[in-house]
């Protein structure tokens, strides 16, 4: 954490309130006008216990909250009260529940440590893990998704790498190393029917073709085509009626080029496992093209294949061993896995922007969930529950709202129909006030629902509210 200059500490302290706090007997109004040693004038009266409690439980209206905050900004004593009064996470603090815990007093130190651990260590850890995962996803999508970045890096590195490392890598290539030998003849696949005697020359041509392929195919199309090129080889006749038409023209190339097909298959098989229907449309398009225009295949072929092979070449020559290829394959698997989720996320965003276009806004007023279809001009009561609602969260058409005493409702159709949800684990169910609901869109579907309660429980569900986990 960045430190602030010490003068800031000092001035913060200097302008703190030096007045006296009211006790309960004064109905919340300040007794004497508090004085301040700095020049800033703070709001006068200390908020009473009721307001402070409601503030800590996020139950104040915006204006009241602002007033309390303004006071707290200057009043160290009230801040201390607030901090001391924070609920102890280990205390089964279900308001209104008849408590039978006799051991609550018996475990002071232990409970404090538990509380510390759960609130300060475990949660940031998880959060960092999630953040790291998010960054990893973003980075790998950018790097491996054959979009802009890939085109930029791949052609630029390969020409340099290939000529330099090829002589060195030559012998292992000849001596049937499983991974690298298929790569070398792959250059011939570019429909230049020369023998694989001059791989260097072919290579550079090929690489140019690879980079030249990018303008031909649109960026998203390219990724789709890459998947499509792989798919027919790995899953012949499964979903695609024309098994590996893309590869058939390459077979005349000889036995070595067959190994190419096979090595591609390895990668393709792995990718096909994780490939999801969201890539199907480009897949189908590619497939249809392959089926209908057989002569065109040979022309179309350099499109997808340079991509796949080009990538493998880049790494196989750089690493010049099979391990390199394997890691590459793994990376591609990851890329393939990510591609669908990314497109799904895009779809999500599309639908959320659609919801925005419909101008549906939500609010909770007096414990009732209200909806506005005209950007806040008029409001309709949408959900009126037995207990007052306190918070809500929306995500696309999913809407969650929670309130006092464990009231939790979910609507998956933008508020048209509602179902009550009762989170529970074993014998323990959520029964305290829900103060906050968060929908974490981790590029997953359904998004993770995180529900916080007034007594510091955090419940989460990753399957849309069926199974719950409690922290």
């Amino acid at each position, binding site marked *: *954490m*960045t430190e*602030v*200059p*010490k*003068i*800031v*500490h*000092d*001035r*913060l*302290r*200097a302008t703190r309130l030096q007045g*006296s*706090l009211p*006790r*309960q*007997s004064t109905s*919340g109004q300040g007794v004497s006008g508090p004085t301040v040693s*700095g020049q800033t004038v703070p709001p006068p009266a200390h908020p009473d*216990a*009721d*307001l402070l*409690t409601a*503030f800590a*439980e996020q139950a104040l209206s915006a204006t009241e909250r*602002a007033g309390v*905050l303004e006071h*707290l*900004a*200057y009043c*160290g*004593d009230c801040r*201390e*009260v*607030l*901090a*001391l*009064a*924070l*609920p*102890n996470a280990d205390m089964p603090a279900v*308001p*209104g529940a008849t*408590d039978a*815990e006799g051991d*609550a007093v018996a475990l*002071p130190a232990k*409970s404090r440590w538990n509380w510390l651990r759960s*609130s300060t260590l475990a949660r*940031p850890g998880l*959060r960092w893990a999630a953040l790291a995962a998010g960054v990893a996803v973003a980075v790998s999508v950018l790097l491996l998704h054959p979009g802009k970045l890939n085109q930029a890096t791949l052609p630029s590195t390969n020409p340099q790498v290939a000529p330099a490392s090829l002589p060195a890598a030559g012998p292992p290539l000849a001596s049937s190393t499983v991974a690298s030998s298929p790569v070398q003849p792959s250059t011939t696949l570019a429909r230049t029917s020369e023998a694989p005697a001059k791989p260097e020359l072919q290579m550079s041509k090929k690489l140019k073709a690879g980079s030249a392929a990018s303008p031909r195919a649109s960026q998203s199309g390219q990724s789709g085509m890459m998947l499509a090129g792989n798919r027919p080889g790995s899953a012949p006749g499964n979903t695609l009626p024309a098994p590996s038409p893309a590869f058939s023209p390459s077979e005349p190339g000889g036995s070595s080029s067959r190994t190419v097909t096979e090595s591609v298959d390895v990668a393709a098989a792995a990718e096909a496992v994780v490939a999801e229907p969201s890539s199907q449309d480009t897949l189908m398009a590619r497939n249809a093209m392959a089926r209908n225009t057989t002569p065109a295949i040979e022309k179309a072929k350099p499109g997808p294949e340079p991509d796949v092979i080009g990538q493998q070449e880049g790494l196989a020559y750089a690493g010049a061993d099979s391990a390199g290829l394997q890691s590459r394959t793994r990376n591609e698997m990851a890329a393939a896995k990510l591609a669908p989720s990314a497109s799904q996320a895009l779809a999500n965003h599309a639908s959320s922007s659609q919801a925005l276009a419909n101008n549906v806004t939500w609010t909770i007023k*007096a*414990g*009732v969930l209200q909806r506005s279809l005209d950007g806040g001009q008029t409001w309709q009561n949408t959900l009126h529950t037995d207990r*007052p609602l306190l918070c809500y969260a929306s995500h696309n058409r999913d809407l969650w709202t929670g309130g*006092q005493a464990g009231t939790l409702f979910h609507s998956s159709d933008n508020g048209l129909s509602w179902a009550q949800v009762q989170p529970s684990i074993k014998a323990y169910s959520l029964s305290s006030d829900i*103060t906050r609901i968060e929908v974490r869109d981790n590029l997953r579907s359904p998004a993770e629902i995180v529900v916080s309660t*007034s*007594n510091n429980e955090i419940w989460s569900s990753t399957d849309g509210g069926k199974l719950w986990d409690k922290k």
Partner: protein
Amino acid sequence: MPKSAQSALEADAAALYSRSGAAAYGVTAEQFAAILEEILRKYLPHTPAHDSALAAADNSVEKRNGFCAALRLEELALARACAAGNERAWQDFISRYRQKLHSMALHITRDAAHAAELADSLFADLYGVNARNGVRSSKLVFYTGRGSLEGWLRTVMAQEFINRYRKQKRTVSLEEQTEEGVQFAAAIPEPQYASDSRLEAATDEALAELSSEDRFTLASYYLDGRTLAEIAQTLGLHESSVSRRLDRLSTGLRKRILAGLRMQGMSHAQAAEALETDVRDIRLNLRSRLLQDSDAKTFPGNKVPAQDASDGTSD
């Protein structure tokens, strides 16, 4: 008040009354309505003024109803019934909160002996032992149901604790400091720092520009030494947002102070130096500031007049 609004209010009051379960504790609908009225007067002070115009009245009725509906009616009924001395309410209160009061006290005081004392004294206050004119006056009569009863109990207890034990705590920590030899550091005189009023002014200016929430966050973290988790919990945010905000605030403040110093005619290097040299001075100076702090008479209450005079560390 217009008839329709009046009847709506009455219907609503009945609904609120039944929801609160106050009847079980022997609180009549009229009494409960009076309690609600009192709370409304306290938190929505402008309500009666709008009665003249129909629209305004409707609006205010809606507002009132909304406000009441969001209250913790059951807990309010329980608390007020206890304050009124209803036996059943007390039984309920004790079974629900007696044990909790003790664990709260332990949480706050972190000391078993003090915890027992604090919990017992609060319990006595709640029960209203200190009878005046033969009428028990229970502290529970001040609970208004804005937050949970349990949260309110914790807050009241925390206030009581600060009231009662803070000076004592300070003294203890002073002794500890003495044992550690810190008092030598505290003896460093102030003028060296106080000389640069420009830095002080620039800092005050930068701090004044902060929103109260930012200032609260800043003070909680740097001044009070709260953890990110505690601040996050108080503000209803996540720790990561608090952490980001603090980073943003500290860098922003530094920039603002530097800019303020340069506005006063310092060069960039001078300003930076002023800020940095100051760091060394203030660290020592803070200690003395800390010690002076206990001269504020906080939470003056009828219960703790005894220790006030013992405050010897003032400047």
